[in-house]
């Protein structure tokens, strides 16, 4: 297995930690300011395929999704295996929900060549529906200055105590290294998944009027309860 590392990989399996991509809720992943809608889903793949930008599995998934939505952009997706921002605007915002709460230890990002790699990354946890003005105004949970990393060998550590119960993470990439657009080939997460799920409280029963029979105390037995 060619990890393309500058160290010898005989002792450990380099890809073993990067398994959190299996817990990403891929259909609900979304991005703002992407040039091709839906292309954000192609950056989440197994660590071994991080440099593979043709993404065959992704193509099939995307074709299914687009077919269901009755959009005819299949030809686009056969070519597009990475996430790119709109021309002239390198800002990107990626919203990633997980299928269960996870603990994230570190994050790896592979950017594009020619200055299109992102230069900075800001993370927000468990906030849905953030847009650019929110992201620019809010304080991020953690920020990193990124370097150009085409092999995907660098990982950015998180402050683990803050990334304990992550149901969704939003990554904001405000700038690139001088390029007109920002390209991202791969985003990987290292950590562990818990079995916990965040669910909305499904059934709530409201009372319009109190029902005395619900409020009997032991001492009074049959009588009405006494309200002070």
């Amino acid at each position: 297995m060619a990890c393309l590392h500058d160290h010898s990989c005989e002792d450990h399996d380099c890809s073993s930690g990067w398994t959190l991509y299996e817990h990403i809720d891929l259909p609900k992943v979304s991005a703002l300011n992407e040039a091709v809608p839906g292309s954000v889903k192609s950056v989440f793949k197994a660590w071994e395929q991080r440099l593979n930008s043709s993404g065959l599995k992704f193509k099939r998934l995307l074709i299914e999704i687009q077919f269901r939505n009755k959009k005819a952009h299949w030809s686009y997706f056969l070519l597009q295996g990475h996430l790119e921002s709109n021309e002239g605007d390198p800002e990107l915002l990626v919203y990633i929900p997980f299928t269960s709460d996870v603990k994230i230890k570190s994050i790896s990002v592979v950017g594009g060549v020619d200055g299109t790699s992102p230069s900075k990354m800001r993370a927000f946890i468990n906030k849905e529906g953030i847009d650019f003005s929110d992201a620019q105004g809010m304080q991020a949970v953690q920020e990193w200055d990124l370097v150009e990393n085409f092999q995907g060998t660098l990982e950015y550590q998180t402050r683990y105590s803050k990334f304990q119960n992550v149901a969704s993470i939003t990554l904001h990439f405000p700038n690139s290294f001088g390029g007109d657009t920002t390209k991202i080939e791969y985003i990987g997460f290292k950590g562990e998944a818990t079995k916990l799920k965040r669910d909305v409280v499904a059934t709530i029963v409201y009372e319009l009027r109190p029902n005395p029979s619900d409020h009997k105390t032991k001492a009074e037995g049959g009588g009405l309860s006494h309200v002070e």
Partner: protein
Amino acid sequence: MVLEATMICIDNSEWMRNGDYAPFRFQAQADAVNLICGAKTQSNPENTVGILTMAGKGVRVLVTPTSDLGKILACMHGLEIGGEMNLAAGIQVAQLALKHRQNKKQQQRIIVFAGSTVKHDKKLLEMIGRKLKKNSVALDIVNFGEEDEAKTEKLEALLAAVNNNDTSHIVHVPAGPSALSDVLISTPIFTGDGEGGSGFAAAAAAAAAGGVSGFDFGVDPNLDPELALALRVSMEEERARQEAAAKKASGDAAKQEKGGEGQSSSQDATMTDRASVGTSEAENKSSDFMDDENALLQQALAMSMDEPASSDDIRDTDMSEATDPELALALQMSVQEGGKDSGSEKDMSKLLADQSFVSSILASLPGVDPNDPSVKDLLASMQNQSEPDQKKNEDKPPKEEEK
């Protein structure tokens, strides 16, 4: 059926008093707004619509995005005309209102009615457009009222900046005899991103055309769109299969025809049941179902249309309808010892050749047990025999009776 939150920006400037749209511009605009609200809330019950005015004293939000159609229609009353339209501020306030929508899963859309001239410059509008695109907000522009080259150019530039994969549209409505809402019904603003046209739009278009409601199958697509769709799909598939089914028809027995007819009515019921439950994916699956189950239906239909019956049919119908007369004929022949016509001979031999028929007759004869080995031998030997043998056979069963 896209889940959408929509903000409608109404132009209530002084230019809306003009009467070139019947009855006057503002009223035409209000009718169009009412129709749009209805269409949006109907296409998906969780859709929300909000309204704001762009002129008057300033941009004012009348209703924040809500799915309550009554509230939306009520706020259209008592609107005052005056002032100048501020397009840029209107769009920006609309974007802000959408940003604070309750259900973050809804897609954001702004519909702008641009009636008066646009005083902003192109650059500003393009910047606004890019910001909308970046935040994935779609924009629909209705260009009516004042006709101005600069205005059209600016609005087209705005659309080009916002447009992301054809989710945004612009419609130019010149003044004319047809109402603003009628013109809008056929546009993508109503039909929504080419999703095959909502049933609401189709029904409204039919009503607007002034003719009798052109609903196929007598089902209002408005009331039950899935049923109408299922019926339409099954009708198309029937047409496609009729040639193939006609070829099969000649070989089929009447029993199948009757059975097929009985099944077809239950099949219709099951198909509609499935249609009312299914989503678009289910419709794909149910069309596969319908492929298989329609085969029988096709045969039934084709046969009912296939008049000249084959000789097999004749014989089958004869059998099903007239077993008793043939039984009587057989009995008569057993009594007659004289010669028979060649015609009746042929009939007899045909009848006797049919094993099941013979055994059923023998079973109905008193004192004859069809399982008796001697009777079975007789049956076997009877198949290719002429008269004398038949006489012998008839003699033998009475002998067995005596035993």
